[in-house]
């Protein structure tokens, strides 16, 4: 556990970066520090490994005041992932990852073999090991940064806006990977970001900071969306928070109705459509797109996979082991983004199992409210 007790950081020019912060980061799980620039979130993070020392209060790591630790030794026990990865340009990928094991006195061979395991863990091919950081893409560099931070197997991992410098698709990949790694490793992660969506996506707990280094709210993400503590949090959480809150509600209660399907490459007639639309599926029953009556009439009777109307988002129902069901947000978005107004529900293998409409999603939401499952 990491405890901030009345922690203040004031710079000589009088600027207060962190103002009387009281906060406890529980073991395990991802705690996100989020806020606008100048809110002291990064300063707070950097005080945990003594990159910055507070001017007031104290920080306890597992009950021990961190000021009693020698900073370099303290830091070797705390993983740190920095923005832009901060890899050492003059060392190969493998040696970058082997840095901390080498610092802690492991032999070069042991450190490199450990580094090799970590590259695999973060999903990097072994052939990248001998390359230099400049030869990697931004996303790959950031993965190496994560591998380096994990190399000494520290119980605590600090992440300072690690994914803010990569494009949205790569960022999404990296976020998914972090969640997967965390489910395997169960570290205590403190993650700093200015992006509230990232905070809500990754955080088990979210600490919202306001300018001037004060804690505005410390809660789990669904509570943050449902009950912002004040106007600042409410405006920072942003528009659409009602809609985004649906992301925390399980869609198990949404009835999945039948949906008309036609197989690509096979004969189909207008009778097979339902309300003028059908989902075109491949041999494994996976959705390829939509066919309308109008479109079908131009297809000489057989479903042409190259000329389909592209579909909306897909909504996964919990029909196979090991996969999680979608949220109400997924279900509603599937319906709203579908050209036929019917959202396609798929199972864990990606096969079509039925359809949902916005009406049924909203009805399920109303049921959940009545049952008291939605925080009011």
């Amino acid at each position, binding site marked *: 556990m990491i405890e901030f007790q009345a922690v203040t950081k004031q710079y000589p020019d009088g600027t207060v970066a962190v103002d009387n912060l009281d906060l406890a980061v529980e073991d395990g799980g991802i705690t996100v520090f989020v806020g606008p620039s100048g809110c002291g979130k990064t300063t707070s993070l950097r005080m945990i490994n003594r*990159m910055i020392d507070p001017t007031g209060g104290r920080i306890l790591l597992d009950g021990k005041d961190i000021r009693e630790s020698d900073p370099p030794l303290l830091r070797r026990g705390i993983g740190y992932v920095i923005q832009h990865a901060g890899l050492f340009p003059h060392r190969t990928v493998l040696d970058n990852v082997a840095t901390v094991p080498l610092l802690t006195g492991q032999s070069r061979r042991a450190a490199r073999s450990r580094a090799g395991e970590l590259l695999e863990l973060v999903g990097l091919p072994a052939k990248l090991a001998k390359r230099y950081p400049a030869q990697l893409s931004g996303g790959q560099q950031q993965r190496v940064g994560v591998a380096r931070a994990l190399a000494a197997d520290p119980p605590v991992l600090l992440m300072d806006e690690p994914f803010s410098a990569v494009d949205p698709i790569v960022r999404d990949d990296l976020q998914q990977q972090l969640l997967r790694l965390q489910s395997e490793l169960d570290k205590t992660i403190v993650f700093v970001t200015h992006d509230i969506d990232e905070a809500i996506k990754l955080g088990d707990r979210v600490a919202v900071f306001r300018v001037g280094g004060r804690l505005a709210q410390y809660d789990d993400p669904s509570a943050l969306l449902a009950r912002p503590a004040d106007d600042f949090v409410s405006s920072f959480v942003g528009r659409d928070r009602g809609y985004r809150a649906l992301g925390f509600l399980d869609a198990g209660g949404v009835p999945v109705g039948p949906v008309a399907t036609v197989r690509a490459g096979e004969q189909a007639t207008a009778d097979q459509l339902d309300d003028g639309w059908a989902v075109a599926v491949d041999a494994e029953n996976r959705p390829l797109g939509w066919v309308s009556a109008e479109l079908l009439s131009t297809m000489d009777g057989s479903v042409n996979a190259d000329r389909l109307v592209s579909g909306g988002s897909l909504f996964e129902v919990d029909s196979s082991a090991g996969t999680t069901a979608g949220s109400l947000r997924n279900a509603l978005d599937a319906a709203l983004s579908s050209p036929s107004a019917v959202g396609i529900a798929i199972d864990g293998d990606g096969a079509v199992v039925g359809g949902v409409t916005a009406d049924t999603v909203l009805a399920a939401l109303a049921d959940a409210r009545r049952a008291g499952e939605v925080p009011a």
Partner: protein
Amino acid sequence: MNIDWPWPWLPANTDDIAEATGEHLYLALLPVLVGLLVSIPLGWAASRWRVARGILVPLAGVLYTIPSLALITLVPLVLGTQIIDPLNVQVPLAVYTIALLVRSVSDALRAVPSEVTAAATAVGYRPLHRFLTVELPLAVPVIVAGLRVAVVSAMSLTAVGALVGIGGLGQLITEGFLRNNGVELVAAIVLIVVIALIIDALLLLVGRIATPWTRTAKGVNS
């Protein structure tokens, strides 16, 4: 003035030429090495503290503009050395090397990305260890470039030392002039240039071998 070209002088004096060459190398390279070792901590100070930079960098610029002969004749006055002491040449050479390299070292260290130094601190390097294994290696390409200029100019400046009676290939030049011996004169000049080029090429090579990461193509994927 007529210059003679007694070619037999060359094979008859190879021992003297070799000795003068060795002396020249010693006179030129030792000060460069000392200058390098001094300029690293000075450059580090200049990269770290604004005040140090404000003093050291302009001072280096001024020192470099002092004519070599003036500096060579100044040394005995300042250090109290004998008039034909090799230090009279070596001290100015070291000063020029420092003047050249302080700025290079300081700029190179300042160019190390802040996230790299922050990451090095965060993974648990102690300051000196971090400097020697992260910041200094990254500064090597710039330092080697400065070193190449310093070595080449030291090779030619050492020849000036002959004017105050210090040995080396410069002595053959002055001697060649006095004796109207064109062979001696040209041989010394050619040797100075060729040796300077060889050392320059060696430094370039060593610099490249020591910095394999600088030759990697940027932005290559997968």
